[in-house]
């Protein structure tokens, strides 16, 4: 089993599973897992989607995946450069089908804090900030996020600061996949090596698990795509994701 789902492959592959055929999907800055998820989906699935990214790429052909998710290499092979202003405008006019946005803290409705731990004005930890979140989360058709740590520190009942409202339609951690249902995050599936009870203990908000089941293992195509994208394991090493 351990060979099927490392924490890293679980996060990247399950993010990719949110991508749908023909839709416009966006990956941004500081967003390595979704960048890899989009590249994985392009390789692993037998349907096509429109992949745009913060480097300006539109359906790029990425030979060597850059460490930085905003690297201009992500526009290689692109027939146009879609500017940073353009993708916000695309989103606010209702044409962003799926965007991936980072989150430091997530609450039970899928809202996000990316700004500060503690009081915003006197932060215990100043976080990076939400980037596009406050504009994109309420305006994108769907948005997904990820955490490389599944804990009551990151999945919280109450955010320290409300950077972005609107609610993620999908959240992936190393041990769980949540989807938005009736305005709340509901458990969709969990890592087969982890007990459902552990997911509950490590989650700061209450959630419905009535429709959840262990996550289906990676397909051969997903596994092969991830291996091709990260042949020397550099991304997996940098991500340093632990299950427990």
């Amino acid at each position: 089993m351990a060979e099927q789902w490392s924490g890293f492959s679980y996060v990247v592959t399950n993010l990719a599973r949110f991508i749908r055929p023909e839709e416009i999907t966006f990956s941004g800055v500081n967003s390595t897992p979704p960048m890899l998820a989009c590249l994985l989906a392009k390789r692993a699935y037998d349907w096509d989607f429109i992949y745009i990214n913060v480097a300006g790429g539109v359906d790029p052909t990425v030979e060597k995946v850059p460490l930085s998710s905003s690297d201009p290499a992500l526009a290689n092979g692109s027939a146009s450069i879609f500017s940073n202003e353009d993708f916000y405008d695309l989103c606010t006019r209702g044409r962003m089908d799926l965007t991936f946005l980072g989150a430091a803290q997530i609450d039970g409705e899928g809202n996000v804090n990316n700004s500060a731990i503690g009081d915003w004005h006197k932060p215990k930890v100043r976080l990076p900030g939400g980037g596009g979140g406050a504009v994109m989360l309420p305006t994108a058709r769907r948005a997904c996020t990820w955490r490389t740590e599944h804990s009551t520190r990151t999945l919280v009942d109450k955010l320290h600061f409300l950077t972005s409202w609107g609610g993620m339609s999908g959240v992936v951690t190393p041990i769980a996949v949540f989807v938005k249902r009736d305005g709340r995050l509901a458990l969709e599936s969990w890592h087969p090596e982890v007990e459902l009870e552990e997911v509950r203990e490590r989650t700061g908000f209450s959630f419905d698990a009535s429709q959840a089941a262990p996550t289906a293992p990676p397909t051969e195509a997903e596994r092969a795509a991830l291996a091709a994208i990260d042949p020397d394991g550099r991304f997996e090493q940098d991500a340093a994701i632990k299950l427990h």
Partner: protein
Amino acid sequence: MSSGYISKDKRIPLADLAAKITDGASVALGGSFLHRGPFALVRELIRQGRRDLEIVKQSPGYDIDILCRAGVASKARAGIVAMEGNFGLAPYYRKAVQDGALTLEEHACASLTAGLRAAAFGVPFQPCGGLQGSAFPKLNEWQQIDDPYGSGQSVFVIPAIRPDYAVIHASEVDAAGNVRVYGTAHWDRIMSRAADKVLVVAERCVDTQTFVDAPETTLIPYFMVEAVSICPRGAWPGSNHPDYDIDYPAVEAYLEQGDDVLQRHLDSAPEVDADTQRSMAHG
């Protein structure tokens, strides 16, 4: 006096370019994270001991971090700040905010763009999509107004942001200051229209004819540019597509702690190298 910059040769040394930015100025910096930032000029501001700068940029990283480390920046308007790649948070920026040494006006990237657009459009404010439910409007005292044309929608309006300077790192310029950028221009175009004045650092100088041959590739026309400096590898330790990639070991070395790390980093930058100085002198 003209509103434009008519001189056909605007090339000046990097030190003179940096000297135009005075203490307390508001400066918009081009590029994004470790990509095509005007980092040679940022370092020159540190060498010249500038103080109290306000930095305006949707996604600063190395630039705001090193300016905080050197005590140059005291204010920032930004959307997301990190070293990015696999480097995580910007440690000296983070410390400056936590210690109160840097006053932050936190934006969504698009709200900062809206403020710049207001300045570029010559209007006092600009509507910005989204922002519903976020704590930013209250934090920044952004007003929400109803559509005066009766759609029933309402929208947040962002006050104009007009930096004193926009500083752009370009792939190519000509002597007069026409500006070309390869790859994504990030927010450089709107910054150049919003700012009071535009300064440019460029990898190289090319003939004006190459701009005439492809005018649609010109990001900023010469008359908007006050001065340019030619500085090969000036976006180091970041990338300048397609000329060079991020120098990861140099960023790692910069991130080490220690009193002499900053000085060592400044001393190892390409703009202090003798060959670079020679090419800068020859434009």
